[in-house]
């Protein structure tokens, strides 16, 4: 294999699939590399995909037979967990049906579907092939060395979309190893349950779906978030916690998952289900400040490999797809000019900056610092517990006058924060951190 391509895409996930599709549609010669047995084989996510960024790639994809859609989400819930309690907020709206806002999916299906679109458009799929290293000529990336015999591939540009571990990205030197406070580890189970049970338990009809994110006591004092999503005939249940907190606490991730499954609110929703698959994956959590330079001489980097996750809104695959699409746009322009230098490919960085991707990451750029500054046990344990205790007090009818109850409830929250001043400071810092 010593052919020369316009572009080599390393990794057939959402970022790589999107880039490959856009490039081949523009008539470029593209090879799509994937180390797994098939696209998606190594990939895990919570389970929510967003219509808009997929539609930008494949118009009206939801009308297709076999579109990789589990359930279209009409309700999103947030649960603040106490030990055996839970305080909830959420939003349910029939308007989410038309147009569909987001839907649940499974990565093995979705990634194969998206990569399949690129292959239909003319990309050359080279799966079951691992990219070992980049091939350089001077200060330019000119290709990829694979583990196939005579497996050197050459191209004008290499799109590095090899996921969170991004060994190729690290070899570039644009980012070094992630620090434990820049990544979280998620453990997840796919729990099969008859669809009628899912619809009854979550108040759904037909292919409607609901999502739940939960935080609090369930992460055992660590910074983290759990999720429970409805698929057609299964539930995706998982929890992600910051790796620095896992190290500090010394808790085994699957024991954390065991404990989540025993929370009474969750236990009753999953009971009778059968675990079909256990999975684990890291999520980029560094936010705005962890995103590296996105392009250079002969290369672009996209998706998880570039830390493109908005952890506040649990958006990742859509950011990945948008980054792949915008990298492709810059490469198409570079092809027209016959110039694949850092200067030309820098168009990708510029387009990203103008897109919702970097604007959203910038908005929340203070969050990472906030989490660093505050002990996780305050935000993820003491405060959620106090909220639940306060709610319990307010809802209990026990002969104590309401004014007194209200005082008690407010006191619980103030005490958890370490006093009125600290609570105000936290509120102020919190507000600033989400409006960077």
């Amino acid at each position: 294999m010593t052919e020369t391509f316009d572009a080599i895409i390393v990794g057939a996930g959402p970022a790589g699939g999107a880039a490959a599709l856009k490039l081949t549609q523009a008539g470029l010669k593209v090879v799509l590399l994937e180390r797994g047995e098939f696209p998606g084989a190594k990939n895990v996510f919570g389970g929510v995909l967003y219509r808009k960024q997929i539609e930008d790639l494949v118009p009206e994809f939801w009308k297709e037979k076999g579109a990789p859609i589990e359930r279209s989400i009409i309700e999103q819930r947030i649960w603040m967990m106490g030990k055996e309690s839970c305080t909830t907020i959420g939003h349910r709206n029939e308007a989410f049906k038309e147009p569909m806002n987001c839907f649940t999916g499974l990565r093995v299906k979705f990634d194969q579907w998206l990569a399949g679109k690129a292959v239909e458009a003319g990309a050359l799929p080279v799966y079951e092939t691992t990219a070992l290293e980049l091939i350089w000529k001077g200060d330019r990336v000119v290709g990829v060395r694979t583990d196939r015999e005579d497996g050197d591939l050459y191209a004008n540009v290499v799109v590095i979309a090899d996921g969170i571990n991004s060994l190729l990205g690290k070899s570039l030197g644009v980012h070094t190893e992630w620090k434990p406070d820049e990544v979280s580890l998620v453990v997840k189970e796919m729990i099969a349950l008859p669809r009628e049970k899912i619809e009854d338990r979550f108040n759904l009809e037909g292919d409607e779906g609901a999502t739940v994110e939960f935080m609090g006591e369930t992460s055992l004092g660590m910074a983290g978030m759990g999720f429970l999503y409805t698929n057609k005939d299964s539930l995706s249940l998982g929890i992600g916690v910051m790796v620095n907190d896992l190290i500090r606490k010394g808790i085994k991730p699957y024991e954390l998952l065991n404990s989540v499954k025993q929370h009474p609110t969750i236990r009753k929703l999953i009971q009778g289900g059968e675990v079909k698959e256990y999975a684990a994956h890291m999520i980029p959590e560094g936010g705005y400040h962890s995103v590296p330079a996105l392009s250079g001489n002969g290369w672009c980097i996209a998706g998880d490999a570039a830390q493109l996750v908005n952890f506040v809104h649990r958006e990742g695959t859509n950011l990945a797809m948008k980054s792949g699409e915008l990298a492709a746009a810059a490469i198409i322009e570079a092809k027209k000019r016959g110039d694949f230098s850092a200067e030309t490919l820098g168009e990708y960085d510029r387009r990203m900056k103008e897109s919702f991707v970097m604007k959203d990451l910038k908005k929340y750029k203070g969050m990472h610092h906030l989490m660093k500054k505050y002990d996780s046990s305050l935000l993820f344990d003491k405060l959620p517990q106090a909220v639940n205790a306060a709610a319990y007090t307010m809802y209990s009818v026990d002969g104590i006058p309401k004014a007194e109850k209200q005082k008690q409830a407010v006191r619980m929250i103030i005490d958890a924060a370490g006093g009125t001043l600290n609570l105000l400071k936290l509120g102020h810092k919190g507000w600033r951190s989400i409006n960077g």
Partner: protein
Amino acid sequence: MSPKMTITDRLFTIRYKSDDAPHLKIKDEWLCANCETQNCTYICPANVYEWNSAQFKLNVSHENCLECGTCRIACLHSNIEWKYTLGGRGIAYRYG
């Protein structure tokens, strides 16, 4: 469904194609023997790393690896050489 699945039960749910050449390697075993925290022995979601006190060494069951990469980041001594499994080998999720 048993609420307390063991890690062995869980690993049985995942498809693997074993890689003959281990993709995980301890760079310096002496460092592990003298490591106070041994983060890898609890942080791994597949229990790949176990301290064998009889042999005084770290057992690495690379064939159980879910390829998440957390061990590499959590190791205080950057003592784990973590490579991608070779093409088509390692885990292949059925749902993901």
